[in-house]
């Protein structure tokens, strides 16, 4: 039992990852087929994982309703909407017309709007949070302002603005971002490697 609880997960992780890495570098037809199968399994598990979020949310909101918390009515709406989407979605799949209606007139507007509200956050942050506290922030803000000036109307008043922002974009921005990309590459390799050989286990979760 102890093996299944603590050793097996590490073995599974290592073996699956090893097959995928080995067939990537070396041309072994049988392993290629195996790797393709493993990737398909990953897709299936990832699909299962999409439904995992339900557990925590149902627990949280059901708890609020059971406790008759003052926010119980809102929780009821969360659970009600969830149930509505699940029932219709499973009954007629996402291809059904009723599900399409739910998607177009409920999911789509709330998802799009909840992101659109960040427009206001940026407005107030522009006024209250983006304070130039040091020389780095000063350089950042100047670059940001020059980038914003490239769009539309400004080009008409300031013909030089698009030229400056194009230079900023092509030279220092590409160079700076390239450094972030390169810096992230080996940190990605390091993290992946630690997960594969079992030195990092946070994702496996606690429990007994």
């Amino acid at each position, binding site marked *: 039992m102890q093996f299944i609880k603590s050793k097996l997960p590490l073995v599974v992780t290592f073996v699956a990852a090893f097959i995928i890495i080995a067939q990537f570098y070396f041309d072994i037809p049988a392993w290629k087929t195996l790797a393709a199968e493993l990737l398909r*399994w990953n897709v*299936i598990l990832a699909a299962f994982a999409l439904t995992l979020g339900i557990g925590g949310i149902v627990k949280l909101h059901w708890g609020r309703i059971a406790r008759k918390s003052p926010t119980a009515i809102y929780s009821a*709406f*969360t659970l009600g909407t969830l149930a509505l989407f699940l029932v219709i979605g499973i009954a007629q799949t996402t291809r059904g017309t009723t599900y399409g209606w739910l998607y177009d007139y409920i999911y789509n507007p709330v998802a799009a709007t909840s992101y659109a509200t960040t427009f206001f956050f940026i407005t107030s942050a522009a006024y209250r949070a983006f304070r130039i506290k040091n020389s780095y922030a000063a*350089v*950042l803000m100047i670059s*940001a302002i020059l980038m914003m000036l490239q769009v539309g109307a400004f080009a008409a008043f300031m013909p030089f603005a698009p030229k400056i922002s194009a230079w900023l974009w092509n*030279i220092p921005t590409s160079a700076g971002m390239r450094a972030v990309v390169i810096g992230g*590459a080996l940190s990605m390799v390091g993290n992946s490697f630690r997960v594969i050989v079992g030195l990092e286990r946070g994702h496996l979760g606690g429990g007994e």
Partner: protein
Amino acid sequence: MSATTGTWLAAFLTLGLFSWMWKENPWFRLVEHIYVGCALGHLAVTGYQNVVDIAIKPLTQTGKYILIIPLIMGLLLFSRWSRKYMWASRSSMGFLVGTLAAVAMNGAIKAQLTQQVAATMMPLNSINNIIFVVLTASATLYFVFTLQQKWALPIIDLGKYAMMIAFGATFGNTVMSRISLFTGRLQFLLFTWLKIGS
């Protein structure tokens, strides 16, 4: 359920979320809670449909019995819902994260390291190229943390300024993105719902 009803419902939900900018209120909270429900619901439905299309149907209709393994592993993931039986999900989780780590590692070195470095090996025959190579090299050194010699510090600092210019550009672009998102909702409210103008 007609498109007109739908448009009114969508407008109600949209305005509810925007009402937050005045102050937090029950309307906003209601829509926020609906969002949590439908986002999760949609995720779960697409996930379920995927499992049916990629695993269950090929298993039952074409007899791909090997797919029983990922199906069982997938079901075991649900043991994460219980503190006591969480351990049963570990192998599935390990598989999921391990394969993903392997795939990412395979792609990262070439796409993010060697190709990027090769692209920086440009002839130093113009001011722009010289600036580009110097900034890329110095900003990359920022991520070499054990480099702490005195001579290197100004170079690293130069690199940090290059990154700040890059972040500034991202900042400007993100503002652009946010305005676009808001414009998109305004276009819905003005043109689709209220049918003003165009």
